[in-house]
C-alpha cells in the first residue's frame, strides 16, 4: 500500500490549518473522503438524482440500481449471506436504536438481562438503558483488566448465568482493544444469548467476516469508512429481520395501508421508511469498492504499523500515559493518552496550533472514563491515509505541550 498515492486521493489533506499542513488524527470520529466518493456524489446529483423504488422512469431506475447495488456491495464486504440482511441507517447509533426499539421491545421482558461492557460507546449504552427502564430489565457490565482488555472470565460467568442479549463493541474507540468476538459469540450462542456487535471501529479498519464471527447483529457507520455523513448500516440475520416488528413507519416500508392497519414490505425495506439517504448509500458502495481495492488486510497491516510506531513514539514523551493493550496485534488504530501536566483539552488546543487534529474529551464513553478514573483523555486515531511522519509531528507537538505546561 503506497500511502503517498492514497493521500493524493484525499483532497482535504492538501489543506493547511494555522499555516501548517492538516494532520488529521481523528478518523475514529469520522473519516475523510477520497475523491472517488466526492465524485460519485456529484455525479449522482448532476446525472441521476431521483427517488428510488417508486419511479418507473429512467433516472429513478438508475438511482434504484445504484442504491440496491450499494446494498449488495456492503453485504459482500462483510460476507453477509444476502443483500436483504443489510438495512441502511444514518450510522451505528441509529442501527443500535433500531435493534433496541424493534427487536428489543419485542424480546426483552421484565427481569431479563442484557450484558454490556464498561468500554462501550454511549450509543451502545443509552438505547439499552432506555429499553431496560421501559421493560424493567437488568443491565450487567463486564469490567476490563489493567491492560484494558475485557475480563473474559467475568464475561463467561455472566454468559453462563444467562441473559437475553450481549451487546458489545468489536473494537474500543478509546482503548483500541480488539475483543475476541468469535469466541465470545460462540459461548453466548451456546447459552442462547443473542449477540449484537458494534462494528463502528472494526468494519472500517479490518476484515470483518460476519459468517465467521457468527453474531446476530452488526452495526457500522459509513461515514467512518470513507462514505458520506449520514450513512451506515445494520446487518441482521434474515430470520431475525423477518420476525422483527417495524421501527419507523412511513412510505416504502409498507405493502398495503388501510385506515386502521397495514401490511409490511419485505425485508430489508420494511426497515427503510421514507426517502432514504440515497446519495449516502451510493457513496457507501463506492467507499466499499475503494477499501476492497486496497484490500482490508493491507489496511489493517498499515494501521498496525503506524499504531505500533505511535505507541513507541508517544511513550517516549515524558509524562505521557497511554491507555489500552500494549501489544499492537490486539488493538486497533486508536491511541488514547493523558499527560501529567496538561489537560486533554489543552493538549488538543496546542496541537491544533500545529495543524494536528486530535480528539479530547470523554469520547462518548463516560463509564469507561469513570472506570479509568480520568475526566477525559486525548486520542489520536489513524486510518489508511496517515503516515509515520505525522506521528513524529504529533510527538513533537506533545513536547511543545510539555514545555508550555512545564
Amino acid at each position, binding site marked *: 500500500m503506497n500511502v503517498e498515492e492514497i493521500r493524493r486521493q484525499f483532497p482535504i489533506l492538501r489543506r493547511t490549518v*494555522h499555516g501548517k499542513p492538516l494532520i488529521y488524527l481523528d478518523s475514529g470520529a469520522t473519516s475523510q473522503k477520497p475523491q472517488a466518493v466526492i465524485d460519485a456524489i456529484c455525479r449522482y446529483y448532476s446525472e441521476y438524482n431521483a427517488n428510488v423504488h417508486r419511479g418507473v422512469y429512467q433516472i429513478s431506475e438508475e438511482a434504484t440500481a445504484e442504491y440496491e447495488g450499494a446494498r449488495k456491495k456492503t453485504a459482500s464486504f462483510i460476507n453477509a449471506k444476502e443483500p436483504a440482511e443489510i438495512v441502511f441507517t444514518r450510522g451505528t447509533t441509529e442501527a443500535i436504536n433500531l435493534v433496541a426499539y424493534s427487536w428489543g421491545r419485542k424480546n426483552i421482558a421484565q427481569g431479563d438481562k442484557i450484558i454490556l461492557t464498561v468500554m462501550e460507546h454511549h450509543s451502545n449504552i443509552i438505547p439499552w438503558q432506555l429499553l431496560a427502564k421501559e421493560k424493567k430489565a437488568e443491565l450487567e457490565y463486564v469490567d476490563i483488566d489493567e491492560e484494558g482488555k475485557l475480563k473474559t472470565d467475568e464475561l463467561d460467568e455472566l454468559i453462563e448465568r444467562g441473559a437475553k442479549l450481549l451487546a458489545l463493541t468489536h473494537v474500543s474507540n478509546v482503548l483500541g482493544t480488539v475483543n475476541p468476538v468469535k469466541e465470545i459469540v460462540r459461548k453466548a450462542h451456546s447459552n442462547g444469548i443473542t449477540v449484537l456487535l458494534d462494528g463502528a471501529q472494526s468494519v472500517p479498519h479490518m476484515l470483518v467476516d460476519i459468517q465467521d464471527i457468527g453474531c446476530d447483529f452488526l452495526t457500522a457507520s459509513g461515514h467512518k469508512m470513507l462514505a458520506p455523513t449520514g450513512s451506515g448500516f445494520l446487518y441482521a440475520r434474515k430470520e431475525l429481520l423477518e420476525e422483527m416488528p417495524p421501527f419507523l413507519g412511513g412510505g416504502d416500508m409498507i405493502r398495503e395501508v388501510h385506515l386502521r392497519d397495514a401490511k409490511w414490505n419485505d425485508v430489508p425495506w420494511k426497515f427503510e421508511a421514507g426517502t432514504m439517504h440515497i446519495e449516502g448509500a451510493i457513496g457507501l458502495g463506492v467507499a466499499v469498492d475503494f477499501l476492497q481495492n486496497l484490500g482490508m488486510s493491507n489496511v489493517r497491516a498499515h494501521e498496525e504499523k503506524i499504531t505500533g510506531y505511535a505507541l513507541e513514539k508517544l511513550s517516549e514523551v515524558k509524562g505521557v500515559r497511554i491507555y489500552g493493550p500494549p501489544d499492537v496485534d490486539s488493538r486497533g488504530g486508536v491511541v488514547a493518552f493523558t499527560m501529567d501536566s*496538561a*489537560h*486533554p*483539552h*489543552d493538549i488538543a*488546543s*496546542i496541537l*491544533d*496550533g500545529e495543524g494536528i487534529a486530535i480528539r*479530547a*474529551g*470523554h469520547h462518548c464513553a*463516560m463509564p469507561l*472514563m469513570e472506570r479509568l478514573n480520568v*475526566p*477525559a483523555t486525548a486520542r489520536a486515531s489513524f486510518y489508511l491515509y496517515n503516515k509515520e511522519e505525522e506521528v513524529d509531528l504529533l510527538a513533537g507537538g506533545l513536547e*511543545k505541550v510539555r514545555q*508550555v*505546561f512545564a
Partner: protein
Amino acid sequence: MTYDIYREIILDHYKNPRNFGELENPDIKAKDSNPLCGDVIEIQMKVDAKGIVKDVRFNGQGCAISRASASMLTELVQGKTLDEVRAIGKKDVLDNLGNPDLGPARIKCALLALKVLKVGVYSYIGQAMEKDADLS
C-alpha cells in the same frame, strides 16, 4: 497560533488556582459540567446580610482555560454585592483572560465558571436566569 492562548497569567492561575477548595456551610453552592469533555466546576460562596460576597471557593476538574477562568472569577467576585456579581458578563471574563482567540468549543470552557456562578446567584435570590443574555 492557538497556543498563544496559554499566556503566563492563564498558566499561573491554572497551576496555582486561587480560592480552590470548599467552604463550610456555604450560602451558595452550584455546579455544572461541560458536556463536551465532562469537566466539572463547583462554586461555593458565603454571603452576608447585605448581600456581599464574604468568601468564595471553587473546585472540580478542568482544563487550563476553565480552571484559570474560575480562579480569576473568584478573585473578581470577592467583596462584591450580588447585584454586582449578576452584572458580570462574558466580556468581563474574556477580558480577564486577556481576550484570547478561543474557538467556539474552547469558549465554553472559558465561560463554564461564569455559568455556574450565575446559576448559584440566581437560585440564591430565587429567580430564574432565563433572560440573562450573557449565557446563551
